[in-house]
């Protein structure tokens, strides 16, 4: 139900809050791309997936990882470069991989997730599974987008392409670099079902994902969803932020996916303390995981790495 979805979104929000704090404290290194504001997309989509399905996400992928079941501790430890990280600290924030939970990976190359899911679709075709690609509006201008959507359609692969249109690629407005400005229409030109949904409404996202996954699972080929959403924070650690239209952030904060879901829960008669309990539970789980991760050790560089799988 929605309460469950709400809890999952809070989990992501709480996690990203922690990561921002840890980044500022110097515990998360390099750069970090937070998912804050887009939680409904990953939670809504991943909630329709089954065992054996697979997801490919981007460098902005903590939400997808958590939505697939990656433990907060292992994810936090990865971002801090600890040996208990889900990739032993080797990958870092931009490249998290967690196959046990169906996450093929977060891909640091814009468009890479689209290719990974397309390939996974080729394999899952045999088993009735579905592969999901998350990517941004900026990726819709990349060769990966075009080649892979066409390839997937031509081969009738069970892939759900999820474009999280958060209006910007880094500091550049989507409208300034996207001819036609309509990403959904591009997907439709490849002759696949293509829907545009409010990406801040987890139930609408879920419904669209259900239809898309059904289509794919049925053997009818790929489907496309454009989720209109917004990132509340900067693109990554360094972000002038000046590109936002005045008042834009406030408008979107008012449509925060957590607020939207909480309001609907209340409207639907869920007791306030039930909502608060779900939130508290999610936050507590994350806090515990992150606290554990902070105490985890760094990997030992003396242990030799293997170039090849044996």
């Amino acid at each position, binding site marked *: 139900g929605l309460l469950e979805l709400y809890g999952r979104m809070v989990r992501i929000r709480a996690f990203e809050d922690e990561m921002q704090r840890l980044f500022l404290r110097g515990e998360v290194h390099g750069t970090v791309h937070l998912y804050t504001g887009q939680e409904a997309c990953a939670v809504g989509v991943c909630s329709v997936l089954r065992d054996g399905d*697979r997801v*490919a996400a981007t460098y902005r992928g903590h939400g997808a990882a958590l939505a697939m079941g990656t433990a907060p501790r292992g994810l936090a430890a990865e971002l801090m470069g600890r040996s208990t*990280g*889900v*990739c*032993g600290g*080797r*990958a870092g924030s931009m*490249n998290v*991989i*967690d*196959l*046990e939970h169906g996450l*093929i*990976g977060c*891909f*640091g*190359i814009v468009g*890479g997730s*689209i*290719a*990974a*899911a*397309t*390939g*996974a*679709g*080729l*394999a*899952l075709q*045999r*088993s009735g599974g579905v*592969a999901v690609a998350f990517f941004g509006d900026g990726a819709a201008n990349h*060769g*990966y987008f075009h*080649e*892979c959507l*066409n*390839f997937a359609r*031509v*081969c009738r692969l069970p892939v759900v392409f999820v474009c999280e249109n958060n209006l910007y690629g880094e500091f550049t407005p989507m409208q300034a670099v996207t001819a036609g400005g309509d990403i959904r229409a591009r997907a439709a030109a490849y002759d696949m079902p293509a829907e545009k949904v409010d990406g801040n409404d987890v139930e609408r996202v879920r419904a669209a994902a259900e239809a898309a996954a059904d289509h794919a699972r049925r053997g009818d080929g790929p489907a496309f969803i454009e989720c209109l959403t917004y990132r509340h924070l900067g693109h990554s650690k360094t972000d002038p932020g000046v590109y936002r239209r005045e008042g834009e952030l406030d408008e979107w904060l008012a449509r925060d996916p957590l607020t939207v879901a909480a309001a609907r829960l209340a409207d639907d008669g869920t007791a306030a303390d039930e909502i608060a309990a779900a939130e508290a539970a999610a936050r507590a789980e994350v806090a515990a995981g992150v606290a554990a991760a902070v105490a985890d050790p760094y990997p030992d560089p003396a242990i030799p*790495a*293997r*170039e*090849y*799988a*044996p």
Partner: protein
Amino acid sequence: MSTDLRTAVRDALAAEMRRDERVVLFGEDVAAAGGVFKATPGLVEEFGPERVFDTPISELALAGAAFGSAVSGLRPVVEIMFGDFMALAMDSLVNQSAKYWYMSNEQASVPLVIRCAVGGGGRFGAIHSQTPGTWLQSVAGLKIVAPAFPDDARGLIEAAVRDPNPVVVLEHKRLYPVAGEVGSAPVPIGSARVVRPGTDVTIVSAMRGVHDALAAAEPLAAAGIDAEVIDLRSLRPLDHATVIESVRRTTRLLAIEEGPHLGGWASGLLGAVAELALGDLDDVWTLTTPPTPMPYSPPLEDAYLPGADAIARSVLARLGVSSPA
């Protein structure tokens, strides 16, 4: 059984597909047409369109589909028609496939094979004659094999398909019609082979250069120079040990590469040997192409490519032996 290299490739692919139904093959015109170089005829007929299929002209998607399917249970073999087009596929190969095993902390490896036709001499011009080995040789996590003989093509494709890591197979266009015995012994990736024992100079090459070196060994023998010829067979990992063992005996090393000197594998091989066996060396040098793209015009292309004559002349000159009249 004697067969040509083209057929050895095909037969090895067919055998692997029979052995393991996770193996799939896709690429541009590989199915219905059996491949532009006719290296895959009959495969769609035997294995069906689910396992062998033609694709759009989308090299980046091909490499990406190979990656994604390889980490999800398949064993894809992809044909990138000409090695020159590997640049278009490179991002997925380098930034996804080659890095996955290490970066995932060994959660999974990426068992894919990318085959491509490489090399000059076919009058195909500068954009259909390159050997992308040097673009990729420094990429950790990747393997690169480069057969010179039908049996090695068979054995290396077998090994590549079975290998849990991403493997690039370079198939030299001028070798497709070359015939030879094909056996069944495994050919480990990363092992060179002495194809002609000798005592005076070690000549190392790969693919077509091995044949040129063997041809050059004849006039050299007539001039009293007994050349040892080594076929590298793999460019990554590279079997330095076999080369060094040989050079310790001959004290002279010539590496022949179909490509420019700077940034090539030949000078890198010399460097690695010098690093490990400097004291044993009397001479080391390379024979490569000029630093330009491959020309189209036949006399230009013939002069551009290092052939048997040039090899023999180079060895004679470097050893200070005058050519037999």
